[in-house]
Every structure is written in C-alpha cells, then in structure tokens.
C-alpha cells in the first residue's frame, strides 16, 4: 500500500478536491471544544486538538436517526405500512479521527454485522465512510489506549493513517478505499514509510496511564458479578448518560415512534444502560432498578461480558473521554484495576 507525503501547503487544496466526491466530516471547534461535524464548503478539519468531546461515532450512528416513515391516515392505501426513510449513503470521509475512535468502530461493527442479522442503517453508513486517521503524537494524561489493545499509531479500522511531520503529513494508505481517497485529493508525492515506527514508539512512551486487564478473561463472570464492591464503587454515580454518549464503543439504542398529525417516523435514538428506563418491563418490574445494578452492568459489559463473548479484548479503547467528562469522577481505570485484581473469597 502506498505511503504519500502531503505538503501542508497542498492540504487545503486537496480537501477542496475531495468535496466533489465525498461528504466530508472532521473536527471543528464548536463553542469551547472540538466536535465532529459535516464540513461546510469553506471549512477544513481543525487538526489542532487532542481529542474531541463527543466521539465520531455519530457520523456512522447518529444520535437520532429515522428508520421508517408511515401514514396513519386510513384513506391512504398504504396506511400503517412502514416505508424506508430516505437516506444518503453517498461516499463520505471522516478526516482526522484518532486511532482509538477508529478501532472503537471496528469493535462496534461486531454488534451490527452478525451471521443472522445485518443492521442496514449502521452498516450502510460504515461501508460508505472512508476513515482517515490522525496519529496521536501527544496523548493526554487520561489516555490509556495502550492498555486497551490500541495505541496512538494503531491502524485497525482506518483506511489511511496520517502522521504530522511538521511541514507535511505522511499518509499511509491501509486499504483500497484509502488509496482511492488519497488519489481523489490529488496527493501523490511519495512519502517515507520509515517515519512511523520511531514516532509510534515515542508516542507510546508518553502514555503514563496503565490499566491492567490481563486477568479479566480468566475470572469467573459470576464471581465478579457477585463481588461486594459494586455498591461502594457506584455511590457517586448519578446515572446520567454522559459516559455512554461520549464513549465510542457504546452502541445501545432505543426505537421510538414519533407522530405529527397523521404521519410519523420510527426513529432510532442513542440509549443508555445507566437510565432506569432501560430495562423497565411493561409490567412495572425492573431487574435493574437500583443504581449499583446499572453501574455494575456497564462495567461488566465493557470489561467482562464483551471479553467473553468475542474474545477480542475489552470493549474500551482507552480514549479517556468518560474519565474526563464524568460529573462524579467515576473512573473506569480504577474500576478495571479493581475487577482485574479481585479474588473471590473461597
């Protein structure tokens, strides 16, 4: 696969060339933080950021997404029949996403693309997207990607990996989609592949935060579930949805019908296992009506059930967003270490 050198003075021009073939998404300063949005015709991705507040999962998996439309008007011959909502799956590219976020989407794919069922909404978006990553040369203090099967130069889930080398980016094409992207931008100068290894080592050395999850696979799920520390660990948690919404590996959703007069939309919205409504049965029974049960579910899912189910490591890429944003300072790093070190009393 090609390695291309992109002189920074050709960057804006290349982005402009891409606009005709791709809808472009990238990080842009919005208010006081960077977040991903669809770039208008005069916007370029702002790559001067550590990481965005919300992850780019919304490019593939919007917070609210129409699935079907329907008419409730009985005089309409097709009343009460679900119609596909109009969608735009024309090619798009996310430019400047961090390797942790890209790996996250590769993990989430396992949920939406199974042997028996394929979620057309998520998969069509995912497959229409070219993921252009920006390697992290300056990870922050809450990043622990190297403990989570990922890293500042990790390539999983990316089509192109960019490394910022001062007055140029060196771009490694990782897939055919990536090569097509680079060609469409008109960037063709040959780049030096050897810059990646030393820069990767340098970036990884900067990550000071280490989390140990090596024992989780062999621990008994039931023993962890029945561990005595959940009530104490969950005391501060306020059961909001901050961690789940900001997390790139969280994918739980809700389906709601919203009507206006005689028409309506069946929508898919992000949902959070932290809310009490999540598992509330129609009968009124709720298997997780207490805070510590929902809290336990989140961490068991991310750090144990997922590990057991797919054998691909944690459902966490160490991006650190939940750690930074949790209003009550619930820290997945300490919880992971606690679970990892737990020995059930015999």
């Amino acid at each position: 696969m090609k390695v291309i050198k992109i002189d920074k003075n050709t960057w804006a021009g290349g982005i402009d060339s891409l606009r005709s073939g791709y809808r472009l998404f990238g990080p842009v300063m919005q208010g006081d933080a960077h977040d991903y949005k669809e770039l208008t015709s005069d916007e370029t991705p702002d790559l001067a950021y550590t990481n965005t507040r919300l992850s780019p999962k919304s490019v593939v998996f919007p917070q609210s997404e129409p699935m079907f439309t329907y008419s409730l008007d009985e005089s309409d011959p097709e009343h009460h029949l679900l119609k596909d909502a109009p969608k735009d799956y024309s090619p798009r590219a996310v430019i400047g996403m961090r390797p942790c976020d890209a790996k996250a989407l590769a993990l989430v794919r396992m949920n939406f693309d199974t042997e028996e069922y394929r979620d057309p909404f998520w998969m069509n978006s995912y497959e229409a997207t070219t993921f252009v990553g920006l390697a992290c040369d300056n990870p922050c203090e809450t990043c622990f990607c190297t403990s989570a099967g990922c890293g500042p130069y990790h390539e999983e889930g990316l089509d192109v990996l960019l490394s910022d080398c001062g007055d140029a980016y060196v771009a490694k094409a990782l897939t055919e989609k990536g090569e097509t992207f680079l060609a469409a931008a008109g960037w063709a100068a040959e780049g030096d592949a050897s810059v990646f290894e030393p820069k990767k080592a340098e970036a990884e050395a900067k990550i000071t935060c280490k989390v140990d999850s090596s024992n989780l696979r062999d621990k008994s799920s039931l023993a962890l579930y029945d561990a005595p520390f959940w009530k104490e660990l969950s005391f501060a948690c306020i059961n909001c949805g901050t961690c789940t919404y900001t997390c790139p590996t969280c994918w739980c959703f809700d389906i709601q019908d919203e009507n206006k007069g005689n028409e309506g939309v069946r929508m898919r919205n992000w949902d959070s296992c932290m809310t009490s409504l999540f598992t509330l049965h129609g009968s009124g029974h709720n298997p997780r009506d207490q805070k510590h049960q929902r809290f336990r579910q989140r961490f068991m899912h991310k750090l144990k059930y997922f590990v057991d189910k797919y054998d691909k490591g944690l459902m966490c890429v160490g991006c650190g967003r939940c750690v930074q944003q949790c209003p009550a300072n619930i820290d997945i790093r300490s919880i992971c270490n606690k679970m990892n070190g737990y020995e059930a009393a015999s």
Partner: protein
Amino acid sequence: MESYIGKIREISERLLNDGTVECVVGFRKGTVALTNEPCMITNANDAEALVWDENCRLNLANYITGRKEKIAIIAKGCDSRNIVNHIIENKISREQLVIIGVPCKGMVDKNNPEQLQANCATCTHRNPVIYDELCADLVEEQKDVDRYEDVRKVEAMDTQEKWAFFEDLLSGCTRCYACKNACPLCYCPTCFVDESQPQWVGKGTDPIDIRTYHFLRAYHCSGRCTDCGACEAACPQNIKMRNFTKKLEKDCFDLYGWEAGLTVDQRPPLDSFKLDDPEKFIM
C-alpha cells in the same frame, strides 16, 4: 480551605466511632484534575480519605434522598439549603441527619480554575443555614452582589435576540440528563421525560424536545432551586442552563419575596397559598 479538612476528618471519625451516625457522606480526592468524587464512609478509619477543596462542586444533598440510615453530611451553604428543602418535602427527616456545616468561599470554575464558578461568584448564602457542627468559623456573606445581572440582560433582549440566544444555548445538549441527575430537587420516581402514558416529550434530538425538557425542568425547580450550580458543573457539554432557573428564581423573589431553603418552617410559594398571593396573571 485546608484547615477545613482536619476538622471534617476529626468530626467524621468521632461521629462514626461513637455510633451517632452509620455513615458520613462527603468527598474523596478525585483521580482527575479539578474533580473530587462524592463518597460514603462507614468506618471511622476511612475518615482520612475525606477531602475538601475548591473542587467540591456537586451537591451532596443529592445523595441522601430517601435514605433511611443516620447520616452525617458535609454541607456547604447551598447544600444545606437543599437539605432544608428535602426536610420540607419529606425526602429525609431532620432527626436522621448530623449536618457538618462548611462555610464556603466558593468553588472554582472547572473550565477556568483561575476564577470562581459562576453561581459562586454571586452567592449570598455561603454559610450553611442549618448545621449541627461547623468545620470552621462562619465567613462573611457577600454584599452588594447583583444576582440577576445576567437575567436582566436576557430580559432586555427583543424576541428575535432571545430566540437566537436560547437556540444557541441549547444547541449542544445531548439529553444525557447529567443536569437533572446531579440536581437534588429532581427525585421523581418517573421523571416527566420518561412518561409514556401519555408521552409528554420526545426522546430524540429534535430541538423542540430539548427545549421542552429544559423549560419544564426549570419550572419544576422554581421556588426550590438554591442555585448550587451542580447542574452546570455536571454538564459535559458546558451548557449554561442556569439561565432558566435564575430567571424563575428572580420571579419568585419579585412575586413572592421568596428565597428557597432558608428555613424548615416555611413551605415554598408554589406549594402553598396565601390570600395576598399575586393574582394579576389570572384575574
């Protein structure tokens, strides 16, 4: 506020040792800069873990709602007013509590630690209004602060400007409900946003639903909100939703002469009726 920590730990250890309380609700040192984690200790030996500094932004009254034990709670001015609210609203009984009062000099803004958090800058009730022990001498209350300068600025806008202002204010909201869940007032078993028969509010990101949520929540807090700022401190998107609650606080003050949570002997105005209550809006 370092001297506070010594006293807080000493009082907590004593209360647990002599069995006056079963637990102490306070803060422990956070794992991330500018944050502390609310915690509950049940063992006198753990009193060492308690801390107090300018990052104790969350309202601890939120953590005692509906609890049945005897609890010691570390309460700054605004927290103590929410405890008063809880007592009036039967969410906890006075007899269950030993309130360790903290005369507060203000929390720092989590995004700009050089300055005080917005609500702290204009706070006029820094001293706890109800307490059993104090961990320091009472501080002087701020005088000559204009609590409603921001509100009046918005009141002075014309309709177009107001619309644009609020549209922009709420544009980043993701309906995570951190504000609602951090608020000690929001304890309804089923919040109005979660009702389905009938469904009052949609669950998506339609701006109409986002606005409905914020407006209605502010109304449910009116006459009860103590401006503790936990909502804004909790919000991961830095939305300034106190714009709504401050306006209603000002209205309560202007219409009913009311400030929330100052005494257990008076019920809030929206929960009681006096013959001289203003009636201009219905008659």
